């Protein structure tokens, strides 16, 4: 018995001792003092605490750089040009940088640690990114795994965004999630109603943020988000537009279609919505309304694996096959894609195989 107590006591004491040493070491060794960050050749400069990541240092100064992975170095959205002081490119950054970007000094700001003074460049439009306080107005089940979440803005009271852009929702610490994380969600709201922000959110099993949305969010819950980000949007042209997106990938198109209706946009537009079965379809009435309100728009849902009980006489097959069947020749058309990287890459393959030039293909990868 005494041996047991001594053993437990010793082990605890050693662990506590080592932790203390680590804390002290962290305090003194990781103290890089104050560092100066010069932005855009001196148009702004910040005085921040060294030792943190550049992404967090900027966030602390209310400059929001897009980051979908919360700084883990997997999304590649937090790229910035670091002109001096960034140190060498880390192996974690390697896969996200092209040869050109490397030459220009582009870095993942979540991986660059502020160890000394830095000279960086931030695209001007990111300065217009704001942090918003809002509260949940409604939560609506669209399918068994997708919800439409509508937020009423509190402060600032309005958001200006280009349809197609996304925001970053803050998921606070809860349950097993020890610290706030940010996740990107495309805005599905009508830009004519700047007092609300609306999103379509699909549950990712065991996902940190989506589980929080599905289990903790209720009308009235206060939430924080920042944005808008992204350059996914409609581009000029006259040819037919092909939209392709399934599931929550529909979000940016809701917003884009609302703006097209507002502007009376006459461009021929076809929206291909890929799903497995009838239970995965949603917002069909809204799409019907767009079909009748817009001069030349059609919504084309396609089922890849309809249930035997589904009464379905629409398109069948994988979305890539359906699009391929509709368009033997895509030369003078534009395509807009939204969804998982796999789906997008497969679609790009089909479209460019049918002659669509790469500069006519626009997409937003949800990962």
């Amino acid at each position, binding site marked *: 018995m005494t*041996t047991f107590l*001594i*053993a437990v006591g*010793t*082990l605890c004491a*050693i*662990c506590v001792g*080592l*932790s203390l*040493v*680590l804390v002290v*070491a*962290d305090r003194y*060794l*990781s103290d*890089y003092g104050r560092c100066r960050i010069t932005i855009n050749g001196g148009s702004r400069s910040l005085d921040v605490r060294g030792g943190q990541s550049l992404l967090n240092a900027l966030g602390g100064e209310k400059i929001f750089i897009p980051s979908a992975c919360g700084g883990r170095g997997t999304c590649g959205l937090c790229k910035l040009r670091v002109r001096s002081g960034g*140190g*060498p490119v*880390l*192996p974690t950054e390697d896969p996200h940088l092209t040869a050109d970007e490397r030459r220009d000094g582009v870095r993942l700001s979540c991986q660059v640690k502020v*160890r000394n003074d830095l000279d960086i460049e931030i695209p001007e439009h990111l300065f217009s990114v704001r942090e918003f306080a809002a509260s949940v107005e409604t939560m609506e089940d669209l399918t068994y795994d997708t919800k439409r979440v509508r937020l009423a803005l509190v402060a600032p009271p309005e958001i200006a965004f280009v349809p197609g852009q996304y925001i970053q929702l803050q998921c606070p610490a809860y349950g097993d999630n020890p610290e706030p994380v940010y996740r990107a969600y495309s805005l599905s709201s009508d830009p004519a109603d700047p007092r609300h922000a609306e999103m379509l959110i699909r549950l990712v099993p065991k996902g940190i943020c989506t589980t929080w949305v599905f289990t903790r969010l209720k009308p009235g819950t206060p939430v924080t988000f920042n944005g808008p980000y992204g350059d996914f949007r409609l581009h000029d042209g006259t040819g037919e537009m092909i939209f392709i997106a399934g599931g929550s990938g529909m979000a940016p198109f809701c917003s884009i279609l609302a703006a097209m209706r507002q502007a009376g946009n006459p461009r021929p537009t076809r929206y291909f919505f890929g799903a497995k079965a009838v239970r995965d379809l949603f917002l069909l009435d809204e799409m019907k309304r767009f079909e009748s309100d817009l001069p030349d728009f059609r919504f084309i849902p396609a089922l890849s694996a309809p249930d035997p009980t589904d009464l379905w006489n629409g398109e069948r097959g994988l979305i890539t096959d359906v699009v391929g069947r509709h368009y033997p020749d895509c030369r003078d058309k534009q395509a807009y894609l939204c969804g998982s990287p796999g789906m997008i890459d497969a679609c790009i393959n089909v479209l460019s195989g049918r002659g669509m030039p790469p500069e006519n293909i626009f997409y937003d990868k949800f990962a």
Partner: protein
Amino acid sequence: MTVPLAVTTPGAPGGLAAQLLIIFLAAALTDNILLTRFLGMCSFLAISRQMKTSLGLGVAVAFVTTVTAAINYLVHRYITAPLGVEFLDLIVFIVVIAAFVQILEMAVERFSPALYFALGIFLPLITVNCAILGVSLFMLNKQGYGLWQALVYGAGNGVGWLLAILLMAGIRQKLKEDKIPAGLRGAPITLIISGIIALGFIGFSGMVKF
């Protein structure tokens, strides 16, 4: 309490130095941790492809082995042994090594960014290198080791590991992988070569007696 630095018989001139030299050579050559015990194999197989990375990892391992052997000697001698809880050595050693590597990483990052970036991911990888834990544990089996002996034993093993990975890197750079049957490329051929080098190292045991 004073630390017994050596247990050689006093009066024997050069006794300590000679003993330390033998411990070092035995640990590095005859009893090479990688080639005779096959510890630290996974990073050896993965990293030995290139000379530069092998050198980086090897030096880091050698340094950490040396220092942790000494620290763990002190922990064993003044904490776990007097309290009669030697069975905790294994788990305590793991914690000590992990903590030491953490601190080392912070220090290197702070004071020598160049070295920090050169070592890159190797420092954190070392925490899970079983050769380092192995050295600390084998040290306990050695009779009559004092702090100096522990330190040198650690250094010898570390240098032995460094030597082995450098040898392998040298060989693998010369090796034309495309001439090797497909099924033997990569890890298999590396293991076969390790075996042959290990045989060669047995030759040292004739030179250095324990």
